């Protein structure tokens, strides 16, 4: 219900009412209802006559004691003083007839003439300007204050109008654009130039439109293992002093060795020897002399700390469908290559099957990442925080090598050591990498 029709006043003005007496009857779309007196008194005034349709909140009339008759707000008070009272048009008209309390507004003939010219009512002028005798200056004041003469009409100089017409633009739009009510030739020229420029821009934009915004195929939330990678790489890239040193190892002998022991190992151990296992063995053997690489950084402390470890737990980066996982080869320095091969294969399988236990992904002290299986010529993996280094193993390539002054085919692999230069000296990192390289180039030493 938003409005109602005043059907009938049961009580007339001047009649007494008591609490509960029906004062008037009104209708809505759905029902007819009564409004009863809430207090004893006299119906002082009907504000809305029967037959009028009014909105909710409209004052319909006043009930009070006789002495309160003069306290009833006048029409203008209701309009301006009481914002929540909305009065319908019919209500306004009726009440205005009923209460001619406004002083009569008079106007001089010239004021009437001026008012007529601008189509305004002298009474309205008198009330707005608050004078009883309206003079021409009051009409002008009214017009100025009401905005009728605020210069909103834009005028162009004759030359400006001619040029505007030649260029098919409106003086008014130029005035609006430049916030002026006087348009000159130079304004038109400038406006026309601006239009030309913006049209050119739009044209360029149209041409580019198709290639500008790439179409989204899919929006993928980053969660689980991918979120772990996301967070760790963010940490590393924003806080670590990641630096990379690269070595190229001649693994001809190692690859020959792998080839020669492959069958026997399968038969006896049920596992193939892997390059990764040999690398882990080399790392585990050598890292003891470079304890700052078998360590963890804690930069939340003040001063920051690096903790070196007794244990050598090598993480191996495994690429899976659900993100990069890094299972841990515990105590890698205590395992044979044979055992390492088995453990690496087993952990990789578990990683892909998502069956790694929590413990199997914790407590790494250094990481080896073999991207060589993907064919990476040189690959520099990121450190797995809070560790201080990671060794990247790249693809094994047959390339020309020099042995005893002769160029002959050899097998090479790039070893990339990325280390946190905040805590690891460059020399330390390079020496470590050279030692690992040396071990791989003499593979027999890794079999023991």
């Amino acid at each position, binding site marked *: 219900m938003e409005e109602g029709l005043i059907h009938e006043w049961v009580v007339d003005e001047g009649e007494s009412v008591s609490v509960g007496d029906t004062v008037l009857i009104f209708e809505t779309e759905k029902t007819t209802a009564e409004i009863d007196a809430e207090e004893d008194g006299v119906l002082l005034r009907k504000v809305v006559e029967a037959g009028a349709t009014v909105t909710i909140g409209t004052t319909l009339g006043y009930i009070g004691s006789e002495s309160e008759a003069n306290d009833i707000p006048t029409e203008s008070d209701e309009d301006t003083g009481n914002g929540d009272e909305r009065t319908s048009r019919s209500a306004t008209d009726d009440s205005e007839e009923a209460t001619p309390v406004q002083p009569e507004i008079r106007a001089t003939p010239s004021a009437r003439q001026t008012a007529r010219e601008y189509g305004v009512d002298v009474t309205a002028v008198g009330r707005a300007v608050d004078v009883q005798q309206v003079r021409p200056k009051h009409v002008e004041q009214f017009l100025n204050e009401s905005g009728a003469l605020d210069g909103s009409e834009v005028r162009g100089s*004759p*030359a400006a109008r001619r040029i505007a017409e030649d260029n098919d633009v409106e003086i008014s739009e130029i005035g609006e654009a430049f916030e002026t009510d006087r348009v000159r*030739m130079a304004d038109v020229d400038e406006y026309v130039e601006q239009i030309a420029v913006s049209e050119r821009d739009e044209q360029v934009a149209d041409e580019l439109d198709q290639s500008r915004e790439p179409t989204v195929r899919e929006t993928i939330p980053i969660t689980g293992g991918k979120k772990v990678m996301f967070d760790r790489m963010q940490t590393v890239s924003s806080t670590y002093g990641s630096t990379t040193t690269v070595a190229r190892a001649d693994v001809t002998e190692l690859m020959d060795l792998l080839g020669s022991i492959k069958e026997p190992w399968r038969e006896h151990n049920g596992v193939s020897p892997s390059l990764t296992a040999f690398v882990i063995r080399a790392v585990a053997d050598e890292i003891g002399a470079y304890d700052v690489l078998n360590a963890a950084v804690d930069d939340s402390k003040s001063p920051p700390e690096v903790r070196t470890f007794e244990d050598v737990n090598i993480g191996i980066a495994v690429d899976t469908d659900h993100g990069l996982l890094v299972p841990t080869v515990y105590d890698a320095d205590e395992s044979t290559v044979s055992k390492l091969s088995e453990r690496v294969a087993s952990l990789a399988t578990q990683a892909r099957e998502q069956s790694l236990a929590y413990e199997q992904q914790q407590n790494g002290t250094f990481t080896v990442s073999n991207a060589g299986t993907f064919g990476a010529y040189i690959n520099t993996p990121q450190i797995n925080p809070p560790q201080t280094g990671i060794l990247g193993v790249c693809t094994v390539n047959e390339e020309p090598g020099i042995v005893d002054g002769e160029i002959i085919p050899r097998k090479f692999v790039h070893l990339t050591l990325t280390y946190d230069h905040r805590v690891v000296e460059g020399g330390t990192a390079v020496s470590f990498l050279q030692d690992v390289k040396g071990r791989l180039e003499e593979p027999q030493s890794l079999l023991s």
Partner: protein
Amino acid sequence: MSTEQTVRESLNQALHEELDRDESVFLYGEDVGDYGGLYKISEGLKDKFGEQRVFDTPLAETSLGGTAVGAALAGARPVVEIMYADFLPIASDHLINYAAKMYFNYGDETSVPLVVRAMYGTGDGHGLHHGQSPEAWFMNIPGLKIVMPSTSRDYKGLLKSAIRDDDPVIFLENKMKYDSRGPVPDDEYTVPLCESDIKRTGSDATIVAIGGMVNTAIEAAENLSEKGLECEVVDPRTVSPLDMDPILESVKKTNVLVVAQEAPTFGGFGSEVASQVIDDAFFYLDAPVKRVGAPFTPIPFAENLEEMYVQTASDIEDAVLDAINT
């Protein structure tokens, strides 16, 4: 080749040459003979051409006007000097109702080839009656030519043309400018009547100035040039009949018009120019037309008031800036 000389020298030469060239030319007026003219414009002419052709008259402008019209109708080419243009009205019945009307009255090629020389110009403390600019008094009379030169070259060339012209010409000389100098061709020449002259070119505003105000306008234009505004100064030289085309062309180029005259602005020459430009080049105007001229009051005698009355270069500069910045 040309020589720098004063307006006075130019006028004297013009009279000399025309008296010499044509025996029907003769010069008369108050003090033009023995004294050689109050401002020495006719110095030496009586001695050279004799008192039959150069002679003094009583202070009787009515007679000067009447005899000039009569002599011209009879075939002579009188050059009569009304010492101060302020007294032209005394002779003006003859000029307005006879000299200007004969050609139209008879319809038989009757002409009145007279020249009335008269001086005007304000700023020398001569008060109410000795410096008014009278061009507007006669502009409204068809049949009268009114010439108001501004440079030595134009004074000479235009006076010679006026003397040779078959119509009555009022030739107005600015007495404040008699000593101003400028180049004048050594060889004989004339400057045609009824041709406006561009005294300075520019593209930002057109200043149409007449008589003594031309130099003031050029001075204003030079000052404005230092502020980056280039004004075109057009000198009509002949007030009536007025050569409007160069003025219209200039306004079409600059889109801004300022008119300048010594006389009061109300009902003046500048108002006529403004009206014609508004009529014929309305859609080329980008600013209100500004008029520079004297206030609507007689020339004050008090020195400080006269100084206020006379329009200066800075008044013209203000008018140009007002127009452009409106």
